[in-house]
């Protein structure tokens, strides 16, 4: 089956996928109905997404990054990006921003065919990405939205200091919470927050279990192409809800069953028969040719056993859990610990740990043009992880949602070459152990 046929083939979906799709569709419906139902809408970002806090004010949550990626997957982002560029945005800047601005400029706001309301509040959770600060300045300019800044300091030295934590907590206490109270008309109830955080911790536990299932051989999941669906609820508008807890319980059950049967991950074309390569992937995926991109991997029997993109909205597999006993400190630590807020030495260590712990054949970096936060320094990360693990690294380039920067033939060729290199190294290793050529 070729790429075009694969894209046309109806995707086989598991119950958790259907549940997740319904949850996300439900959130878009809530957004579409928010004004008529008298609800207030807040926009924020995935890294540093304080979903539990926002729920305390009965705010409907909108995540422009998720809107942009959905537009990308629906093939609509090119037009929006070009609209934004016609209006004065540079071709050099983040395509998520342009896709969002272009969508607003066209008055559509319709990732799912339903109009999105103008946000009542922008929570500029300035976490792990400089562009966020400018993105919401641009949206503020467009809509005249009230904006509250939450500056999350960068972990420049690889640690969270008391000063950083205290700074974030103070901003929450003195700026963010009073602003959300005023906009929503709902008084802040810290016990309500604790309840949500209790739910979050349960969901995080199951999510980590699911991610770590990939340590098995064969891996029952693809931690990148499948992983981006798994993180939807927890990185989106659902962390802290019973629905999310239930979703992750369901997902874990499905993966447990797959493990019991020694089954590989589900792909759009069915279950992967043979795991031939185990890869760690660093960097966001391409959304505009997502299925075609995925097919390049599963056609080769390449399974992603760990990915860093699936930690962009929170890193849970190194012990962090939301803590209802220390709610605001916990929210601060969550923000400070998001993947793109980690310094490069920490990222190098994390990637090396993944390669070792998940017994990967190597590290593949998918470098996207739009995201300097991820991308600047990835070439050094590649060499650093190769040196630490002795495993080969590969490097491919495309973009998040700008289809002009996705060259399928180029990517496929590089991926195939990389996998051939892994094979060659296996052959040499086998010979060294006394095997035959």
């Amino acid at each position, binding site marked *: 089956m070729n790429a075009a046929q694969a894209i046309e083939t109806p995707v086989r979906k598991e119950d958790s996928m259907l549940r997740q799709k319904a949850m996300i569709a439900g959130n878009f419906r809530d957004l579409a109905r928010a004004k008529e139902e008298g609800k207030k809408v807040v926009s924020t970002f995935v890294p540093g997404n304080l979903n539990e806090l926002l729920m305390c004010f009965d705010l409907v949550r909108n995540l422009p990054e998720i809107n942009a990626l959905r537009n990308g997957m629906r093939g609509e982002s090119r037009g929006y990006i070009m609209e934004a560029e016609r209006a*004065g945005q540079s071709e050099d800047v983040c395509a998520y921003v342009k896709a969002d601005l272009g969508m607003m400029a066209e008055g559509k706001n319709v990732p799912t065919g339903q109009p999105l309301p103008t946000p009542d509040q922008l929570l500029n959770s300035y976490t792990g990405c*400089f*562009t966020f600060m400018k993105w919401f300045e641009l949206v503020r*300019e467009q809509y005249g939205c009230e904006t509250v800044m939450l*500056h999350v*300091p960068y972990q420049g030295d690889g640690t969270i200091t008391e000063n950083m934590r205290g*700074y974030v907590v103070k901003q929450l206490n003195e700026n963010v919470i009073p602003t959300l109270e005023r906009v929503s008309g709902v008084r802040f109830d810290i016990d309500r927050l604790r309840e949500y955080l209790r739910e979050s911790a349960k969901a995080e536990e199951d999510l980590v279990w699911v991610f770590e299932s990939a340590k098995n051989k064969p891996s029952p999941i693809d931690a990148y192409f499948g992983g981006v669906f798994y993180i939807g609820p927890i990185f989106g508008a659902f962390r802290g809800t019973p629905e999310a807890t239930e979703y992750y319980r369901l997902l874990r059950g499905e993966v447990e069953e797959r493990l019991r049967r020694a089954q590989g991950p589900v792909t759009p074309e069915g279950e992967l028969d043979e795991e031939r390569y185990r890869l760690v992937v660093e960097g966001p995926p391409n959304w505009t040719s997502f299925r075609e991109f995925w097919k390049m991997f599963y056609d080769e029997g390449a399974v992603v056993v760990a990915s860093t993109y699936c930690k962009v909205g929170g890193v849970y597999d190194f012990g962090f859990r939301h803590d209802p006993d220390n709610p605001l400190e916990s929210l601060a630590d969550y923000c400070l610990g998001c993947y793109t807020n980690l310094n490069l*030495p920490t990222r*190098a260590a994390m990637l090396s740990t993944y390669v070792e712990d998940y017994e990967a054949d190597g590290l593949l970096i998918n470098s996207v043009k739009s995201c*300097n936060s991820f991308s600047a320094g990835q070439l050094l990360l590649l060499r650093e992880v190769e040196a630490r693990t002795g495993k080969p690294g590969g490097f491919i380039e495309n973009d998040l949602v700008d289809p002009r920067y996705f060259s399928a033939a180029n990517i496929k060729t590089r991926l195939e070459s990389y996998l051939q290199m892994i094979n060659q190294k296996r052959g040499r290793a086998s010979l060294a152990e006394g095997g035959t050529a």
Partner: protein
Amino acid sequence: MSVVEIIARCQELFDDLDFAYVRGWKEAAEGRKAIGYMPIYVPREIIHAAGMLPVGILGGGDQLEVIHGDAYYQSYICRIPRSTIELGVSGRLDVLDGMLFPSICDVIRNLSGMWQLMFEGKYVRYFDVPQNFEDDIGGSYYLRELQQLSQDLEKLGGRAVGGDDLRQAVALYNENRRAVRELYEFRAKEPWKAPTSEVYLVLRAGMVLPVDEHTRLTGEYIAAARAEERPMRDNCRVVLCGTFCEQPPLGLIKSIELAGCYIVDDDFMLITRWLLDDVPLDGDPLENLAAAFLHHSGECAAKYQPEAKKKGQYLIEAVRQSGAEGVIFAAPSFCDPALLDRPMLQHVLAAHDIPFTAFKYAENSGQMQPIREQAGTFADSIKLWSA
């Protein structure tokens, strides 16, 4: 000294990518240290108070061939980190005992981590300035960061940094900022006497010279330039905006001037003017530096503007104060801060009927003719069609 002599000295310092001056300064006395910093702003007072020389690192410019540096970056990243790495891996920055990477964008942010990986053992600090400007929130955070920096440099230098050391440093940098403000005021008033291609070199000298020496040099240049007879031209007066990190080639500045523009304000090396007023000398110097940053500092794309209606007003004010007739947006290719900010600034200018034009450059841009044509056309459009 004459203008020619002063500028020749500044040019020599500018051209020296081996940082021979810094080497010489260190060798002149036992135990001296030098700390590099990247744009936009670090509190140089603290470095000076620790007995160390602050050295501004602005990439390698158009005279440095980048061979190794390109291997660290994809094609869509600006040039300043590539040439900075080139300076590092070629040993030119071995003279530095530490590097400070201020919060300006994700590229420079991540470069701090790359430096930690590549130059183990060197002091490296990511200097994260607050985007909250309330005294008891951003101010408290920032004060602690200043204290940490001071403690780090004490440890590195092996000597305490006392309140008097800091006060003296603050006084010296206040003088320097006054001198630079005077230079900018002089240029805005009589731009034919202080071409930006010269002013730029005077500022660049301040990236390596000790602060008191740079203050003297700046004063000498102003006096010499005032005294020199130079013809006034019918040039258009412009503000240059976007040049706060990766620097344009000197040839680009000259091309804009040759095209018929007087650059009467700009955002080169904002560190020289970031704090807008004298920092008080009484009281706790670190608290004073923190308060100055929060309440009396400049604006640029890397600094959050909490009030929507104030966005871009600093640029309107710069146009008004300098008597400019238009704005040239000159941003480095791939510069997220400058390029994302630009449309918002352009809208504000349009609302005030201030003409503007825009182009991109790289620190090693070599083809100046298109820049000259664009700047020249812009100047003509103002002179011919704005009356």
